C-alpha cells in the first residue's frame, strides 16, 4: 500500500501535464472572455452629436446610463423580470407534474405498466433542437397558423390570433419550455426515488402506511437534495433562456404593466444578443457587457444559494 502511494507521487507530474489542455482552453475560451466582458462593461462609448466621433471613457457610464439610467429605459430589469416569470411559469407546473409522475412510476402498490415507453416518449421533446421546435410552434400559432386558424374557426379566439398578444405569447413560450423539460425532470426524480433505501418503504408498509403517506413522509424529505439540484440547474438554465422566445416571436409583443409598456417575451440573453451582434445597427458592446455582468451576478447568486443549501446539509 505504501509502495503504491510512493509510485503515484513519483508519477504525479504527468497528472499536471494531462490537465494542461483543459486549463489552456478554459483560460482562452471562458476565463479571459469573462474578464474581458467585465472590463468592457466599464468602457462607455458616448457620442456627442450626430457626426461626432465616438469617445470612450472608462467608468460606470454603461451602468449609469443603460442599467440604471434613462437611456436604458429599464429594459434590462424588465427583461430580467420577464425571464424570471417565464421560468416560474414553466418550472412550477413542470416540477409538480414530474413529481407526480415520478411517484406513480415508482409506486410499488399500483405497479404501472409501460413506464419505460412513457419515459422515452415524454423525454423526446427535450432532445430535439429547440430552434426548430420554436419555429414549428410559430407555424402552429402565428396569425395564419393552423392551430390559430382552427381556434378562430371554432370561435374560441378573435381574428387577430394569439401570438401578437403579450400575455398569450408569454404563456405559449412557458408551455413550450414546460413541454420540453418535464420529461427530463421526471427521469431525474425517478432516479432519485430509486436511490432511496427500499427498506424504509418496507418498514412503512409493515406499519400500514399508504402510498400517499409514504410519499410525503419518506420520498419527499429524502428527495430534497435532488429537488434543490433540479431547481437550481433549471433556474440557471432558465436565466439564459434564448432559443425559444427568440425564434417564436422575437420578443416583439407588448404588455402593459402599470405605467410602463414591457416587451412580454424579451429575455436578458436576447437583449445581450441584440447589442453584441457585430455589424448590426444596435451594436453596443459596452452595453451588452454591462447587461452580461448583471446576468452573471444574478446567476452567481443563484448558484451560491445552492452551494450554501448543500453545505448546510453536510
Amino acid at each position, binding site marked *: 500500500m505504501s509502495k503504491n502511494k510512493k509510485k503515484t507521487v513519483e508519477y504525479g507530474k504527468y497528472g499536471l501535464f494531462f490537465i494542461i489542455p483543459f486549463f489552456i482552453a478554459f483560460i482562452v475560451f471562458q476565463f479571459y472572455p*469573462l474578464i*474581458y466582458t467585465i472590463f468592457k462593461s466599464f468602457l462607455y462609448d458616448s457620442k456627442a452629436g450626430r457626426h461626432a466621433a465616438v469617445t470612450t471613457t472608462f467608468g460606470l457610464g454603461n451602468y449609469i446610463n443603460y442599467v440604471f439610467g434613462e437611456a436604458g429605459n429599464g429594459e434590462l430589469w424588465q427583461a430580467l423580470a420577464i425571464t424570471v416569470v417565464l421560468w416560474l411559469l414553466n418550472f412550477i407546473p413542470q416540477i409538480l407534474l414530474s413529481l407526480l409522475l415520478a411517484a406513480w412510476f415508482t409506486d410499488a402498490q399500483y405497479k404501472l405498466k409501460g413506464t419505460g415507453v412513457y419515459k422515452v416518449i415524454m*423525454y423526446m421533446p427535450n432532445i430535439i433542437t*429547440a*430552434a426548430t421546435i420554436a419555429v414549428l410552434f410559430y407555424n402552429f400559432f402565428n396569425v395564419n397558423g393552423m392551430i390559430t386558424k382552427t381556434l378562430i374557426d371554432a370561435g374560441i379566439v378573435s381574428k387577430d390570433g394569439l401570438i401578437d398578444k403579450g400575455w398569450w405569447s408569454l404563456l405559449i413560450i412557458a408551455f413550450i419550455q414546460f413541454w420540453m423539460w418535464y420529461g427530463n425532470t421526471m427521469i431525474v426524480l425517478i432516479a*432519485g426515488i430509486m436511490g432511496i433505501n427500499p427498506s424504509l418503504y418496507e418498514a412503512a408498509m409493515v406499519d400500514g402506511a399508504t402510498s400517499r403517506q409514504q410519499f410525503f413522509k419518506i420520498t419527499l424529505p429524502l428527495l430534497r437534495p435532488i429537488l434543490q439540484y433540479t431547481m437550481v*440547474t433549471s433556474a440557471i438554465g432558465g436565466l439564459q433562456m434564448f432559443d425559444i422566445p427568440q425564434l417564436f416571436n422575437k420578443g416583439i409583443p407588448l404588455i402593459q404593466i402599470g405605467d410602463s409598456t414591457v416587451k412580454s417575451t424579451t429575455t436578458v440573453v436576447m437583449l445581450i444578443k441584440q447589442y453584441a451582434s457585430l455589424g448590426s445597427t444596435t451594436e453596443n458592446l459596452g452595453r451588452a457587457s454591462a447587461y452580461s455582468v448583471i446576468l452573471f451576478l444574478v*446567476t452567481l447568486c443563484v448558484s451560491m444559494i445552492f452551494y450554501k443549501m448543500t453545505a448546510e446539509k453536510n
Partner: protein
Amino acid sequence: MNKTYSNKTSGKKIFRTIVCIFLCFLALFPFYILIVNATLRHADIASGIKLIPGKYFFTNFQSLFDPKKRIVSTFTLFEAFRNSIIITVPTTILQIYFGSLTAYALTVYRFKGRDLAWGFIYAIMMIPTQVSIVGLIKVCKITNMYGTFWPLIFPAIAAPTTVYFMKQYMESGLSLEIIEAARIDGCSEFGIFNIIALPLLKPAMATQAIFAFVASWNNLYNPTMLLGSHTELSTLPMYAQAIRNNDKRQDYGQVYTALLCAILPIIIAYLFLSKYIVAGVALGGVKE
C-alpha cells in the same frame, strides 16, 4: 373487502394510465402534425389542422432546393447539415477525449494542486457561457477565428460537466492495478491512458458523447454570434432561424418539410439510443 380493494386499485391504475397516454400523445402530436404537413401543399395546410398525410412530400422537398421557390436563399439545407456535422463531430471527440484525460489525471495521479484543480472544475460547472459572449467575440477577433468554425469546436476541450461525469465513473470503474501492471510492462504514462484506460471507459464515454453531440448540434446562440456574416457557414438551427426570418414568402409545405428534415437525424438517432439517453439523464440527477 378484498374486492373493493382490487376495484380501487384497478381504478387508480386506469386513471394513471390514461394520464400517461395523454401526455405521450401531447409529446408526439406536434411531431405527427409536422410529418403530416410536410406531405401537404400550402393551401391544404393554411386551411386548418389536417390529420391525414398527403402525397406532396417530394414536391416540397424539391422546392427546398429550387432556386426560384426556396424560402432560404442564402444557403441550402444540405449546406447547413454539412456544417453542423463538420462542427459537431470534432467538438464531440475533443470534449470526450480531453474530458476523460482531465478526469483521468485527477483520479489516477497525486500532485500538488490536484484538489484545488478539482474544486475549481466543480465550481465552474454552473457558470453559463452566454454571459461572456462579448469577450469570446474579442478572443475570436484577436486570434482571427471570428467567422470560422474553430471557436465553436475548441472550447469543448474545457467541458467541466464531462470531466465531472468521467471522474465519477472512473472512481468506481477504473482499477489502479491495471495501470500499475501496464507501468511494469514499460508502457508510457500517455500510452497507458490511450491504450489501457480509454477502452475501459467506453460505456461512460458513449453516454457523454451523446449529450455532447446533442448540445453542440442544437446550439443556436454561439454560431449566431460567432460566424458573423458568413451565411455559407450556417448550421441547422440557423437554418430554422432563416426559415423563421423569411416567413413573408409563404409556402407552408416547404417550411414543414425543411423542419422535418432538420430534426429527422436526431429523431432517428433517438429511436436507437433512447435507452442509453434516458439512463444518462437519470445519472445526471443522482450526482449529488
